């Protein structure tokens, strides 16, 4: 029968691919390897964040390997990074966890996006995988997922403090919160609306079509509404730069706030320089004026033989590093990269420590019911009347 060749060919192809993969991973295991997975969007619009997480993991692996490897008992094991593109979708997150499970990877940096975490964690729970995610989504960690950790804090944590500080400096009675019409936009925007609202600010959420490149209509809408301030924290950096640029074209002279992952560089770039900004305040997810940041840049250049990540991606890479360092340290203390309960126990026991920021803490019990969110200091940056006022270091209390 000549139908069989077709059938066999299709099946053979699948088997060939799978067996090659299995053989390859078996060969590595014999050389004492610690496997670190990275899950995030590496293609598409959000790829900058996924690639930042990948860069962080690769840097950390390079750093540890430069010292001969990760100490595991009385030997040192090489750290190898396994990236997976989870495409900012629920299905992608689930596929990532299955992929990691097939490669016996039990520690994962990421996922980065809310939908990815939604898809990832039920599967990861079954397979037994520890992860440090970056998303702002509500309920990102919880008692239902004991192996899930949070590498940074959501607006709900530092929001009250930072909003209060901002309101001390700037008079804001009406606020327009701008975000894209997807979960990346709504996760942060909804929390921010609540936080500002609790401190007496009248807020309005404005969502734009994701993929917008020309923000002139949105800028015009803002100009017509005349709010005291706009919040652009959840916007992707390129979009934020474009919006600010076109707002300046339109003659906007109000306050700009970014209490989220955006940072300063995109807005400064959009305005055309610090001197053009009348009032801007933003969250530094890691305080970038710390000496540790310069040390990181130097290490990065030395190890990766490439320029350090651009200014606005630097905090995202360093946040990823925080999570990676704790996971690897826990693996080293536990003496295994496979026994997740042991590794998780070490994580919960230890005081989180960053090579670049010193000691931090764990928190999260009050909000999430589980103390598995990293507490490292953040910063509030302020530019007023065209001048940098400075970065206020804000300690995040451990619990």
């Amino acid at each position: 029968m000549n139908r069989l060749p077709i059938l066999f060919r299709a099946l053979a192809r699948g088997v060939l691919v799978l067996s090659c993969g299995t053989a390859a991973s078996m060969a590595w295991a014999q050389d004492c390897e610690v496997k670190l997975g990275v899950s995030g969007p590496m293609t598409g619009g959000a790829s900058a964040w996924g690639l930042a997480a990948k860069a962080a993991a690769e840097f950390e692996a390079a750093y540890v390997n430069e010292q001969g490897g990760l100490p595991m008992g009385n030997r040192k094991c090489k750290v190898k990074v396994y990236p997976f593109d989870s495409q900012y979708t629920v299905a992608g997150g689930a596929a990532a966890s299955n992929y990691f499970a097939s490669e016996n990877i039990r520690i994962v940096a990421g996922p980065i996006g809310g939908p990815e975490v939604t898809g990832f964690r039920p599967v990861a729970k079954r397979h037994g995988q520890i992860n440090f995610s970056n998303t702002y989504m509500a309920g990102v960690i919880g008692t239902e997922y004991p192996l899930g950790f949070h590498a940074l804090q959501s607006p709900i944590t530092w929001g009250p403090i930072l909003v209060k500080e901002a309101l001390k400096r700037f008079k804001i009675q009406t606020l327009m919160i701008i975000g894209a019409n997807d979960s990346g936009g709504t996760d942060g925007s909804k929390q921010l609306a609540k936080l500002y609202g609790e401190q007496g600010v009248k807020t309005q959420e404005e969502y734009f079509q994701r993929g917008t490149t020309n923000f002139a209509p949105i800028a015009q809408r803002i100009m017509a509404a005349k709010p005291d301030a706009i919040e652009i924290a959840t916007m992707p950096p390129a979009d934020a730069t474009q919006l600010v640029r076109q707002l300046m074209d339109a003659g906007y002279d109000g306050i700009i706030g970014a209490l989220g992952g955006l940072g300063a560089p995109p807005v400064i770039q959009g305005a055309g320089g610090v001197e053009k900004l009348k009032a801007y305040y933003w969250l530094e997810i890691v305080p970038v004026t710390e000496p540790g940041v310069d040390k990181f840049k130097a290490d990065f250049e030395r190890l990766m033989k490439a320029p350090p990540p651009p200014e606005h991606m630097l905090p995202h890479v360093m946040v990823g590093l925080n999570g990676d360092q704790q996971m690897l340290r826990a693996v080293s203390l536990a003496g295994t990269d496979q026994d997740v309960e042991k590794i998780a126990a070490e994580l919960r026991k230890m005081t989180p420590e960053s090579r670049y920021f010193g000691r931090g803490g764990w928190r999260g019990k009050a909000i999430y019911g589980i103390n598995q969110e990293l507490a490292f200091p953040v910063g509030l940056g302020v530019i007023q009347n065209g001048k940098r006022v400075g970065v206020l270091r804000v300690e995040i209390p451990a619990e």
Partner: protein
Amino acid sequence: MSPHRHRDFKLDIWGVALVLPLLLVPLFTTSPLLNSLTYQAAIGVSAAMAVYVMLRMGLLSFTVPAFMAFGGYAAAMLAKSGVTTNLLALMAVSFIVPALVAIPLGTLVLRLKGVYFIFITFIFNEILQLILFETPTLTGGSDGISGVPPATLFGIDLGKPALLVVVTVVVCIVATLITLAVTQRWRAEFTSIEENETLAESLGVAVWKYRTIGFVASAGVSGLAGFSLVNMLSTAHPSSFASWSVNSYIAYAFVGGRGTMLGIAVGSLLLIVMTNVFSAYAHLSAGLYGILLLAVMMAAPSGLVGGVVQLVDKFRSRSRPAAAAPVQEKQA
């Protein structure tokens, strides 16, 4: 179109047969990779079958993700409401809701031809995504509906990981059988519309009726695929039904061979495996996928199965040069 109706039917049957062994995977192995590939393949084949139904009429429909969303969300709402989580009920709902939507939509949209049709169906996806976003109380908005309870079957909980995969394969088999039934029952009518619509009309074929049948069937099959996805992930999320995902389903159909169901199955299995392989290469994955698409489409424009069939035909005609052309069966 080829006169090899009998052979095409056999190839269609082989398409169904190719999917059946997927049932064995979750029952005989706990390998996460194989199980992941299996459920992805099951869902992908179901969606590609929906594309296939329309292709039989020469229409390329971009509505598949939108109807998947209708089916998936409908099933999710039903399961979460507590009324029932019965697998058969959920499957029925996920087939019927998109099919019902397709009837009025079809009367509006099926008048369009060629690229206009493609375009309207694509815009329909975009509109649905926006509606999902603007209706958070009903659909969960950008967060979707999570924590959807898994389907059950008369008391048996199908929530265990292996059984979830089994459910997707079962849904896939049902979707494939429905596709087979529809495309075989009305094969002649669909073919006549594909080849020459005006001629078909003049011969008395009520083109609008069969187009609607195909459109509704395609919608229902898409809905089943959507339910399969939602059940597997326990989440109905807008990102699962993005407009651009239709490119994948279309690619499965074309790379495998759009002429037969075997082509659909082969294309889906191959591309899903390759996509997973490429995902491990992170940022290169889109480019690798593009190269694969180019290579296959240029080497075999009628797809892998179509290309093989053509080669076999060539061999046959070489070894039997004096054979008369087969008599064409005509259906009134």
